């Protein structure tokens, strides 16, 4: 068993984990942060995407021990403490960017990273950013629309797909 300490959504956590425990399982089962979902456990579907030191990672492909000392952000940290939704969460609801909601946390975290790096992405850039996140329900269009709605860029604008 290994001792680890990390900051998750601005709160310090410490605990002991087996070396083989994935970061996603640690978040879900040890910390009770069950918003991070596991869709394939082989790094393709992106449902378990969280941010580690600001960069998106697959929670299923990273071991918890590798996150020692890291700053981790998960979907639970997006809304304000008073429950006010992040504008991207708000936009997902308004534009119907989610149906079953299983891929949604991974989508959101991937897009948070995108918007931090590129506050005004084109439609093509949004589609490329989420090309590593599978969604069976929506067909992606409503997700793309949600992102563009928070950046003020219309769907299908010049220079896009």
């Amino acid at each position: 068993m290994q001792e680890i300490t990390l900051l998750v959504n601005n709160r310090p956590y410490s605990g002991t984990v087996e070396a083989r425990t994935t970061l996603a399982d640690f978040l879900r089962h040890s910390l009770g942060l069950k918003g991070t979902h596991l869709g394939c456990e082989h790094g393709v579907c992106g449902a378990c995407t969280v941010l580690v030191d600001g960069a998106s990672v697959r929670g299923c492909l990273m071991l918890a021990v590798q996150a020692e000392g890291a700053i981790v952000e998960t979907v639970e940290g997006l809304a304000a403490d008073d429950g006010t939704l992040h504008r991207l969460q708000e936009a997902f609801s308004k534009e119907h960017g989610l149906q079953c909601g299983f891929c949604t946390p991974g989508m959101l975290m991937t897009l948070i990273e995108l918007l931090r790096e590129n506050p005004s992405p084109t439609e093509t850039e949004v589609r490329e950013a989420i090309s590593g996140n599978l969604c069976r329900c929506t067909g992606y269009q409503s997700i793309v629309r949600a992102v563009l709605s928070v950046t003020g860029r219309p769907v299908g604008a010049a220079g896009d797909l």
Partner: protein
Amino acid sequence: MAGTDAMTSGRTHAPSVGQRITRIEDGPLLTGHGEFLDDIVLPDLLHCAFVRSPLAHARVDAIDVEAARALPGVHAVLTLDDLMPQLRSGRMPLGASPVGGQNKSTPFVLSDKEVAYVGEPMVLVVAESRYIAEDAAALVNIAFSSLPVVSDARKALADGAPVCRTELDSNRMSNFHVGYGDVDEAFANAAHVFEDELWQHRGCGHSMEGRGVVAEVRPGGELCVWSSTQMPHDVYYMLAGMLRVEQEKLRVVTPDVGGGFGPKYCFYPEEAALPAAALLLRRNLKWVEDRRETFISSIQERDQYWSMQVAVDSEGLLLGLRGRMIHDQGAYAPKPVNLPYNAVTAVTGPYILPAYRMDVDVVHTNKVPVSSVRGAGYPQAAFTMERMLDLVAVRLGIDRAEIRRRNLIPADKMPYTKKLQARSGASLVYDSGDYPAAQAQVLAAAGWSDFAERQKKALDQGRYIGIGLANAVKGTGRGPFESGAVRISQDGKVSIFTGATAMGQGIATALAQICADELAIGPDSISVTAGDTARTEIGLGGFASRQMVTAGSSVKLAAKAVAAKAIKAASKILSVPEGDLELDDGYVREKTGNQSISLGELARVLRGAPGYAFPDGLEPGLEATIRWRTDALSYANACHVAEVEVDPDLGQVTITRYVALNDSGRMINPMIVEGQVQGGIVHGIGNALYEFMGYDDEAQPLTTTFQEYLMVTATEVPNLETIYRETLAPGNPIGAKGVGETGTIPAAAAIISAVENALSPFGLRISQTPVSPEILFKLIKSARDAARQNPDSQS
């Protein structure tokens, strides 16, 4: 309280049906506070893993679990023998049937004598964590003797072919015919007859959340089972028949379900094994399917082979259609086999076809069992019909849209009775729809008429662009009923209880909208409990695009009954004539005076209290349960036009434009309808170009990760342009038709039509789905080679 809406509508809340309101489901799902199956935590919960067959067909000689049992942290390693004291049968019942009995095609709870596909569950391991359970599963040592494998449904019927399970006399599970009219005469008198061999493959369902089961042993011999299923009541009925536990002590609940798409329609061995093990061990157990298990144990909708002939007159009018279809059923049939029947009865689609005959063989193979994936045989039907119509059009030199127009059922023939029966024996009656107008509308939107010119220009630049179209109809709203109960609690809160299953479609929001309008409240204050057998006594669940029609109608009638009762009770309590009262924002008010009473107060009166007056002539309770009955289907229709560009040197297809018209009757929430249509189309794009569940000749699966099995991602789809018609369904109280599958059904046919059209300079024919770049490259190469050898044969 009264807002500005009251000025115009007389009510605080404007009608909600027909509005794009945001979903009541969204809040928890967006913040990571949904409760999916793997999120359920119970005291002392143990975790399970299954040992699955590594071979497609083998005799089981010995199962040695000693090393696995000895691993620290392991609580039990169970074979079928261990579970039998808790089970009435070691064999699964026929799910989704009133019989529920076992037959020679139903699977086993755990297989311990013979295995018939890679992935078949054999041993259940229970441990302190899933990690340890999987460690122990790897230590289970099973001795097998390989048996001959049936990997190809077409070869499975040959004389001397091995059988895929030794208990069977033949791999042919069933053979049936459907048809009507004098087909032979139609062909004898036809101006033209064309034929084709079609291969269709649809792959897996792949909801992003896999299956999963939690079984909780409760005091008093009670058992609560959570399952990520589309069919909680079926799981309940089947489990009650399987386990040695009284039905009234059993409860089945669906938590948040991370997508259904068909595979969660079946009652699975894991759903029987886990509760049996929980009863045996008196412990709470959880099993969550991982993605590899999805690939090798969740049902798939795999191969169908269609040999077809079409007869037409000189104008391209359909005279007859006939053929044979071989359906790969896989190793078992967990529920009545409806896919091939759906497929061959849906072939005639929106068209008038005077004579028809299909012979169908349902064939077992040593592969994962087959059942419905979104569309359930209708996409194959549409592909067959639309491809045959394209064949006629191309051969006769008639525009592909024109040949469809000539054969579509005209609007003035509605309702139109097909000379075919549903599985229930009822006639197929198309209730409403205007197919020619729908097609004309989408063609105009898609620029069909000037495409030939654009195509010519592109070809001059060396670019191969193509356009294709496909029509579809889908029988939706399958009965016999779905439960809908509306209850007002003592604080005035409105709750809906239904046997419909929420699996991501937004059914809670749509039902709340219907209920809200009847009660003159806002939909977001309504709570919806779907899929809990302790809250809804009988119900069916989610399949066949049925829940909006069936549960929606029941909820509408239940809410209407509650509204009437509230008015009646208020009339007695306030001494105001019923006609002078109206519901508004949680109150019954005088229309002109100022008396009012809240729904909460009415509920408190109607729930009764000892020694207090009870209104005369009213039944207790401010609630109503309706199970609106239907045997008829409401037929939704769709027409899709796809535009593609193909790189003939790479076999690469790019979808450049997609215009889809959908008519699902009244749209309760147009935003949700659009989401269903778009998601459905993208599923169909996957079926057309990407999704393939491969097996080798020994029936070993070849595609067991998302790296090998390709799902559509955001970069493969253009912005889909969707158009809606609302032909109200005459047969139900809300006028709606289902929409969950209509997007998927014509999509592959439209795309393949477009790809073939793009490659028309090569004169090739595409008779299969999916079409990967490799397959397309080969088709183009052989067309080029043929043209080189025989330069005059090119069209």
